[in-house]
């Protein structure tokens, strides 16, 4: 698999150019961001890129989704990608983040999504894979991430999303899965990673997403949660992930998409989110940072651009597919992969 190299770089640039066409505010430093990303892409041997190797499955999914968006999916060697993806599959049925890495539900969903995108789900032994995911469900309805038993509502979302894509949702006990997610509901209307865990915008996205796919959004107190979520928007216009935290470009995603799912997105001011993102640009050297005047990085650049485009251009056509929601890991390094995926499939936007 060599998808990480030249092809991905091409797709990033294409994507940027393409998305920015829809941007009407005219203040986004298009050329500079593109150059910035190019410069980052050249640094293949630096420390950061080695540290990220275990996430390559997510990267592949992100890059291919970008190409799909651009209508360029035909330019990739599908067989090569499929054989790389399949080389990450283990005997258990689960996929690792890269060749040789252990299987985990986080990467299993990405693998399924890559194959679904390429219309190659038929290479999978679907029942084996679905059984792997189902085997991770615990007695209380929760899901472990792998055989080592870490439990988190992120994994509930991933399992439900993945089985839904495979049309095998009946392999798990949906009622118990829903009840577990509901048991993580807090007194502020939000959700935590396990019962008693503090509400967090990323975790809320997972839980609301899991409930959306299973038709269980009636468990959400939409007004209470909607108010908590809309209060994530601070005076500067940016959004934070928890009360009294600093705003951050990447949280725009979790909050916005959760608000959309519960039909309360009008409670925040989108223009001010845009303003905040524009203020996070490094106008000299390109790139977008988490907050104004912080160091730029590639994740916040992708993210900022993606949100800007999707929220403020109206030149998009809807695309069916609540099933295509992505894997989720609220850690910043993974974020942009997810964001791409979600923006295009979950938010139903296509340029």
């Amino acid at each position, binding site marked *: 698999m060599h998808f990480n190299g030249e092809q991905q770089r091409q797709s990033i640039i294409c994507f940027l150019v393409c998305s920015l066409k829809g941007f009407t505010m005219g203040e986004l430093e298009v050329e500079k961001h593109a150059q910035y990303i190019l410069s980052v892409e050249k640094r293949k041997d630096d420390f950061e890129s080695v540290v990220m190797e275990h996430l390559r499955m997510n990267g592949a999914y992100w890059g291919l989704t970008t190409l799909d968006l651009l209508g360029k999916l035909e330019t990739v060697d599908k067989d090569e990608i499929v054989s790389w993806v399949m080389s990450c599959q283990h005997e258990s049925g689960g996929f690792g983040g890269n060749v040789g890495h252990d299987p985990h539900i986080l990467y299993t969903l990405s693998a399924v999504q890559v194959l679904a995108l390429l219309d190659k789900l038929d290479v999978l032994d679907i029942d084996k894979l679905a059984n792997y995911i189902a085997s991770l469900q615990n007695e209380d309805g929760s899901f472990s991430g792998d055989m080592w038993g870490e439990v988190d509502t992120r994994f509930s979302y991933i399992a439900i999303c993945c089985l839904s894509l495979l049309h095998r949702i009946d392999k798990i006990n949906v009622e118990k899965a829903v009840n577990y997610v509901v048991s993580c509901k807090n007194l502020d209307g939000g959700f935590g990673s396990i019962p008693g865990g*503090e509400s967090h915008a990323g975790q809320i996205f997972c839980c609301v997403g899991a409930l959306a796919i299973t038709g269980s959004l009636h468990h959400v107190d939409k007004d209470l949660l909607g108010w908590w979520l809309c209060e994530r928007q601070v005076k500067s216009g940016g959004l934070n992930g928890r009360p009294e935290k600093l705003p951050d470009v990447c949280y725009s995603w979790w909050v916005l998409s959760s608000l959309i799912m519960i039909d309360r997105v009008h409670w925040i001011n989108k223009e001010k989110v845009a303003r905040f993102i524009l203020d996070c640009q490094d106008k000299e050297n390109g790139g977008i940072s988490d907050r104004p005047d912080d160091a730029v990085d590639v994740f916040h650049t992708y993210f900022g651009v993606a949100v800007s485009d999707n929220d403020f251009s109206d030149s998009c056509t809807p695309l069916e597919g609540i099933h295509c929601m992505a894997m989720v890991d609220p850690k910043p390094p993974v974020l942009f992969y997810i964001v791409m995926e979600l923006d295009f499939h979950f938010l139903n936007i296509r340029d």
Partner: protein
Amino acid sequence: MHGRPRKPQKPVDDASIAKAAKLRVLQAQFFQNHHDKIYAKEALEISAKLLETNPEAYTAWNYRKLAVEHNLRSETDPDAIKAVLDEELRVVESALRRNFKCYGAWHHRKWVLNKGYSSVDHEFRLLDQFQKADSRNFHAWSYRRFVAALKNMSEEEELKYTTDMIETNFSNYSAWHNRSVLLSHLLKQKIEGFTPREKVLTEEYELVHQALFTDPDDQSGWFYHFWLLDQTVTPGAPVLVSSWPAHGSDLFVSFKGNLDGGVSSSFTSFCSDKGAFPLIIYFNQSVGGINSSTVTVKHLFDKNEDLIWVPLATNNSGNAQAWVTFLRFPDVKDDSLKAYPVEVKVGHSQCAFTVSLRSIDSKHGEGGSDMEMIVWKDDSFHASEPLLLSPPVVSLDQATTNKEPEQIDSRWHEETLANEIALFQELLSEINCKIGKLTLARLLRAHDKMIYKMPFADEKTHSKEVLDLFSDLMKLDPSHSRYYKDEHSLVLMEQVVSNRESLLTYCWKYGEAHPSYLCNPICLRLSKLSLSRIGSFENLLWVQMLDLSHNELWSIEGLEAMQLLSCLNLSNNKLRSFTALEPLKLLKSLKVLNISYNEIGAHSIDTSRYLFSSPLSHTVGDDWNIDAYVTDGVKMNYWEAAVIFKGLYLTQLDVVGNAIVDEKFNLFLTHILPSLVWLDGDRVY
């Protein structure tokens, strides 16, 4: 990369490349060992080094677990076991010092602790360090709950810890959160020292006041205060708040035509051609399990156990605020106007009303033809004679008797609310604080709801003051103005429908002649009120004709409770899609619908789609055929509209002025609605 200041760019330096190369070598060695299942000391050191450099290398944590299991397989010496596990804790600790948000590291630690050989006290000491360094780290809080459970720490002790954390820093939302979790559990279990509830909550109010008055702009305490308020005013058990027919009312049911003159109240008349009339019960919260064993209906013509109760909900959860059943009446030949009593009992609530039956001659009286079009124009409506009007506004207590012991603490409720209101009025006289205003508005609303619950309450409500507060907030905090706007609308609705006099000013009589399905020609006209949301359905169950046109509605959530609706005008609002109209699916009496001049089809993002029952949310089977409406060989992919309309028998529909409308769409409508007589003012043939 968060919170790192922006500096001038530097090219990748040699040091970074060297570091990367070194990491690559480590990684390669590690994977070789993992693959070959080598768990010797040197191999373990390599994985430790890898994790200390890159804690996110999750496979290395897995490898170390395998190594521990392998190396302890034949070990029985507790000291040797402890030594192996201590080494794991050491690796985790140094990984956490590099990145204490690393999921894999925290989980590895839990895994080791679960073996039961390690000192839990040491964990508390470590946590104190971590929580001091970052008092909001949710991994650390989560780990704290884990070790507290492992040590069987009492919840009181942990509650004490949150008090300490809060007193160190009032702005610690994580501590307030943990406090709410612990406290609600302690209250629920009625643990010694945590009863009576009122005493505990009063102390909590005092604690949170300190936080709020120290820094009124910090959100942490306000969220906790909001939770306390909810704990104060929300009754535990669901309460029946209203019904149709209303408690104490005399219902006139006629069938096969219109009511003739001489009926005392148009509000309590109903006509039916099905030999039955609906009985609707409405609760203060969503409830499940309503059936003939939980609700007893005493009625001459039905056996209680034969009644089938249906939840009025758009989802299939089996829960709803409003439930409906149908009561039969016999074929009455005489004109005796005998009033038959009906009694309904639900838990501790009950209501009673009478039903008189009227058989009507075949003549249609002064009524118009069923084919006639309803015209939603000002000159179609007349102020009605007040004599005929006595809308069944229910007060909460009218429908409920035998109140639970909650009587005892109603005094405490009232005092607490009054106290909080006075306190925040004082605070706001000194500073202009948005969340303080919002809290005051919520307190005043809660207060109004409570006095409204008291029988014969004569106190004035605060709705004017609450409306002013929300108007203020819209200006003070424009980013969230549409939240305040929605709240403003709900309060305005409460104000309009909460008392008879006010409601009467919105009631109009439709036309001289009206179709027979409209046996009650009283139209509630709530148009041009700039409403963005609607509510107060408990007072509107009687409405058969409703005009909500020229508002700013984006949602009609809750409208499904209004089972008697036969004519509904939603034109000139801000409804964005058919999925936003889902409540209409449940309005089986609906004949006339106007949704013209909305924004259906004008937006690419359908924000109500995820709340809508469809195969996408697995609420409808996979066999659901969205391509079922093929007309003249043209596939009509209007599945949302199809779902809404396929169960309705509309005779009149107005859709013009929506982006979705074109010739093809209108053709689709005439196919899916064979009962349609009028479409956009034109006769359908």
